């Protein structure tokens, strides 16, 4: 295409340094020839009314005769009576995983604390026997957490995962947002799906 712009009458390809064959510029259809009816507003108004009326009647009928598998045709999910099905990748609240004895798997290595971009985690580590560390205090400040998933990614022990909890996180006081270890623990069974998802995405078959 040898059409030009106001830039000194040079063709496009020379101006921006892209060879014309690769450029494939496409003119948008700006110079519309509006017909008389369109210029009199009538045609477009009628067309717009047809579009919205079509949505209106399809949705109205969809209230009475809902399509297969759904309660109604409209796009809305009627929360909290109905909830969305979350994908397995969903990152909700971080929780600590408890093993069969109810003790946390965490060994207080401090990687999640160092990695957290919002500095939400703080750990006080202790040793209960030589070589066996555990977190005496594990504080996760939900007011700072940005749900990025880094803590889950760097944990070498699969001790913290992003659960699918997104409800009940609000508190009336900021101090109550600092969750301690006891509030964060979940039995392994409850986070089984997330653990298997995490194992899958960070395994060498997905790398």
């Amino acid at each position, binding site marked *: 295409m040898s059409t030009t712009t106001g830039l000194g009458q040079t063709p496009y390809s020379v101006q921006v340094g892209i060879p014309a064959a690769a450029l494939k510029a496409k003119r948008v259809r700006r110079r519309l020839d509006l017909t008389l009816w369109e210029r009199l507003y*009538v045609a477009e*108004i009628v067309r*717009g*009314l047809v*579009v*919205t*009326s079509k*949505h*209106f009647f399809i*949705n*109205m009928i969809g*209230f009475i005769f809902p399509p297969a598998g759904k309660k*109604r045709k*409209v*796009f*809305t999910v*009627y929360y909290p009576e109905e909830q969305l099905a979350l994908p397995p990748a969903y990152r909700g609240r971080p929780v600590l995983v408890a093993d069969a004895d109810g003790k946390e798997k965490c060994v207080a290595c401090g990687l999640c604390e160092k990695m957290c971009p919002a500095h939400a985690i703080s750990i006080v580590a202790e040793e209960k026997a030589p070589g066996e560390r555990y977190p005496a205090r594990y504080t996760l400040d939900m007011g700072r957490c940005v749900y990025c998933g880094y803590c889950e990614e760097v944990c070498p022990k699969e001790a913290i995962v992003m659960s699918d909890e997104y409800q009940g996180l609000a508190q009336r006081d900021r101090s109550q947002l600092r969750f301690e270890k006891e509030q964060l623990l979940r039995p392994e069974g409850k986070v089984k799906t997330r653990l298997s998802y995490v194992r899958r995405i960070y395994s060498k078959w997905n790398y």
Partner: protein
Amino acid sequence: MLADLIESLAKIVFIFTVNVGVFAPILGWVERKQSAVMQDRIGANRADILGFTAIGLFHSLADALKLLTKEDFVPANANKFFHTLAPFIALVPAIAAFAIIPFGGRYELFGREINLVIADLDVGILYVFALAGLATYGTVLAGWSSRSNWSLLGGLRASAQMLSYEVAMGLSIIGVIIVYGSLRLTDIGAMQEDFFRWGIFLQPVGFIIYMTCAIAENKRIPFDIPEAESELVAGYFTEYSGMKFVMFWMAEFLEMVTISAIVTTLFFGAWHIPFVTDAMLLSWFQSAGPNGAAALAMLVNIVVFFAKVSFFIWLQMTIRWTLPRFRYDQVMRMCWKMLLPLSLINLSITGLVVLLL
């Protein structure tokens, strides 16, 4: 004498109930639900009484209660008298305009001739235009008395828009008046008994012009620049809260009903069913005796009238939710350079045709 009084009172009470009692709250609900269904949503339906949600109808009640209990403030530098007066001036013409609209024909009931219209004035349609002129003051006063830059802009735009469109509106109706030869709305309605004498066939251009001008008078999208939500926050009623806000809002809805009623009366056969004359209607109910037949015919005509009114309200709402809004100068240009010449041409052609035929 007494019977006349009772009849008038009955009609007034009926219209008032239907308008303010039924239409205003229902229209709030319709606006929410209709826009929601058009936009693939459910709409507001959570307000309930004792766990019983009536698909969202209680939201109107909840809104009214909430707005009643809001603090009623007047801005610091505002002109208090006009600030309080403006909503009333906006609301009263919208309600009063219904006085001349016939919602049914003439019936012989128990020896009396009942004319289903509150006031059968011989100036008919001019009464409505007079009231529309009054309604302009409400908006202008609201904008000016709030002493805020934004409200002032809204009031300015409103005054220019409403005044201009009144002129075009009046001219568009004159064509109808020439064709039917009478200003009385009851006469115009009665003359539309024959389906092919409906106003829409005799004055199609007049219908389009009138509809456009009426939506512009009512300040609905696409002409809602005085209250353009995204430019002027809320335009001329930015500084209003509580019941006064409700009055502006109700005035808008009731004027929608009025516009629909006038369009039905002038262009779409008023209370008539297509291809059914009055005599045919009465003959359907012959078995109920003359009084019963008249009563049933009256009922049918009222239902038909309000059904048509509802259709035009639906149409106005669909237009509102579909189209973007004009810019201020485009509104003015459309009125003075497009609608006014068009209505004058329409008028001249109508006059010529009536003269020659």
